[in-house]
């Protein structure tokens, strides 16, 4: 290894530790969840159950098969479907309550999460050689303004806009400000920082994409190289990404795997048809019929009720 000083620290050591924290922490946390059993079958049902053949059941929101439940989770993950139901409750003199549809959170969340996914996938061009054809296709579809060079991607615009709006939403609503903790603001600012440095790197610095790729390829092949022509801004970007990766498993960002494992969403509503087993089902003392009859036998006989023991 012949990488000098600061470059070694910000270019190799920090990202390596971050990757270890990310994968290690992610696995530790998710395995930790998986180690706790799901003792009871507790899906939240929306819409009609499957019961009588002539009543149409709601297969998407009240699935009765594991496949249906998987589809429900997929729609929650990919389309944030529960947020489409969102309403805003208001009270007026009278008194009168109204529940107006409110889909801003859905919109901002979709903007941010989907653009982030596209951006992460676009970055594969720096990690893989040769660059897969589908990554190039994705980039082509992501073009926003054809004018100028390099082109501005739609995902870049939506990412920054989505994050900004999520932050604005959190700051402008008194209720949201009240429930927010540091952990809610930190990732927003971090991601905005990552977006800003990334955009600057691409559009305003004299960065040499080939040099960056050479450096990144050195990292991922575990043989870091000293590469010239890499701007300091790149190390800032890389550092912020490292912080995000390191922070991820220890934070609310774990909602990503959490939604997949949530027993209220990923179980089918079939608990009367298929028995769900609780591995720790504890024995409990039940007041037995015999004890009950012993206490009330005289009165039962008097009342003409049948008894087991005369």
């Amino acid at each position, binding site marked *: 290894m012949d990488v000098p000083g600061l470059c070694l620290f910000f270019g190799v050591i920090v990202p390596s530790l971050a990757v270890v924290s990310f994968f290690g922490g992610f696995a530790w946390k998710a395995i930790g*969840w998986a*180690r*706790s*059993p*799901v003792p*009871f079958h*507790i*899906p*939240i*049902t*929306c*819409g*009609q*159950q*499957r*019961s*009588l053949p002539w*009543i149409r059941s709601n297969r998407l929101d009240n699935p009765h098969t594991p496949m249906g439940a998987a589809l429900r989770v997929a729609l*929650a993950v990919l389309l*944030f479907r*529960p*947020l489409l*139901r*969102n*309403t805003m409750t208001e*009270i007026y003199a009278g008194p*009168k*309550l109204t*529940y107006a549809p409110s889909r801003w*959170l859905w919109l901002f969340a979709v903007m941010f999460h989907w653009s982030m996914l596209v951006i992460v996938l676009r970055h594969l061009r720096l990690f893989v050689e040769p660059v897969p054809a589908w990554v190039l296709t994705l980039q082509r579809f992501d073009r926003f303004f054809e004018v100028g060079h390099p082109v501005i991607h739609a995902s870049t615009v939506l990412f920054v806009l989505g994050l900004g709006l999520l932050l604005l939403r959190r700051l402008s609503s*008194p*209720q949201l400000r*009240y*429930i927010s903790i*540091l952990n809610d603001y930190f990732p927003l600012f971090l991601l905005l920082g990552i977006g800003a440095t990334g955009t600057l790197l691409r559009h305003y610095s004299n960065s040499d994409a080939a040099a960056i790729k050479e450096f990144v390829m050195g990292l991922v092949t575990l043989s870091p190289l000293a590469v010239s022509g890499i701007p300091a801004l790149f190390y800032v970007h890389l550092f912020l990404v490292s912080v995000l990766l390191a922070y991820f498993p220890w934070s*609310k960002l774990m*909602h990503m795997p*959490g*939604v997949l494992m*949530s*027993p*209220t*969403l990923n179980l089918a509503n079939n*608990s*009367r*048809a298929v*028995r*769900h087993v*609780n591995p720790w*089902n504890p024995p*409990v*003392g039940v007041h*037995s*019929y015999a004890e*009950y009859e012993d206490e*009330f036998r005289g009165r*039962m006989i008097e*009342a003409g*009720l*049948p008894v087991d023991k005369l």
Partner: protein
Amino acid sequence: MAVNVKPDQPEYYNHEQLTQIDYRPPAQAWESRPVTIRPGSFLHPAKPKGASSLGLPHPRQWSPMDEDWKLPADWKEIIITGMKERLEKYRSFKIFMDTCVRCGACADKCHFFIGSGDPRNMPVLRAELLRSIYRNDFTLTGRLLGTLAGGRELTVDVIKEWFAYFYQCTECRRCSVFCPFGIDTAEITMMARELLQLVGVSVNWIIEPAANCDRTGNHLGIQPHGMKDTLEFFADEIEELTGVRVNVPINKKGAEILFVTPSGDLLADPGTYTCMGYLALFHEIGLNYTWSTYASEGGNFGLFSSADLMKRLNAKIFAEARRLGVRWILGGECGHMWRVVHQYMDTMNGPADFLDVPVSPVTGTRFSHARSTKMVHIAEFTADLVKNGRLTLDASRNDRLRVTFHDSCNPARAMGLIEEPRAVLKSVCRNFFEMPEETIREKTLCCGGGAGLGAGENMEVRLRGGMARGLAVKHVRDAHGVNRLATICAIDRVTLTTVCDYWAPGVKVAGLHELVANALVMKGQKKRTHDFRHEPLDPES
């Protein structure tokens, strides 16, 4: 404020004051904001007698109004150990502690928040009451960074806060419908209540009924001969109204079906009319069934207290089905009873391999969706009868009623029993009007008195919690002249009576099978002049 009216009476509360609600949170952060415990806002603690008879830890005499709650010396250790144990036993608990992003989608979905504006009643914050302790004691960042990472130290004030706010949650699950991750506040409330119970902090409205269920089989403590008297009295009433003498089979071995319903319907109007409705219907279709005095409670107060207690009380239903040698079980109209039957019973006390897959003896319909648990909801059963034309119904007998339907939380959000009761309702009454879309089906609003909150002493909480439902009822009352609210929950029948009297006066509450019985044409009946409430069918005559 009227004189001599106490905080446990609805009249104590002024409409104007209750509806002056500001949804904007106060300036002071919730972590440092003291909890106000005042008459009308809290439930009485469990009396030592009930708690001891169930063998619950640390039974004692104490009052929430006192400074000292007489917690056991090692209360802190008990709570932390209890949390650890539950994190290991419930994946839901772990995931719900870790994944919330505080997006706020749930915030204004809780009927207690809607009716109070109290920020701790936002479901997200209700969960944070527990989550802040979790972060402090169970996460790496919380241990290292404390309050910076959203952690909070466990103090006696936290216990007081938990008591106040986890008993201002009815485990109705409305918020979780809107949560992008399905975080279920009911699950979190159940965990918190279990933890509180470990240090002897529980409420009498739950523990005393549970103790009664354990001993006498039902939450009201009705003994076997008393239950027989009650059912015979209903049979007399039915005979007076219809001219038909119905049979009342009790503890009958070899019956085909065991019928279990919440015992509240044996004692409290208007549930009693629903109970009479069952008797009339079962007689008319010639059902070979039996009531049980041992398993005389479908409702399960264990659900509001702890999983172990839930299992213990629920075990009686299968045990009695086995003893009586029935083929399957039919369950009456109840909300949380069906949460337990549908989502817990088979897991806790099954497999019910000694029973048969339920088949309607009248229509031959096989209820294969209940093929494992072998228990069918009466709305499913009656909907099947109606669909197959096996009932002669004269819906005109309900013509003076203009009816709306309240979806009860648990059948709606833990089952999806939505269309069955509507199908029955539409066949027995001709004036049916839905409440606004955002307040029914899976978005239904709670009565404000479920999950052990239906007591008197917490009346302010109940009226505030019932406000959203009450105003939706008022809306259809004013728009369509609705005067009857039908519902399939015994708790609703009691609590919504209070809610409607307060927020939508003029609307009375009825069970589904009361309306069925009104319309039911019975073989050998005399001319019907009165409904099951002894009210004339034609008010003009």
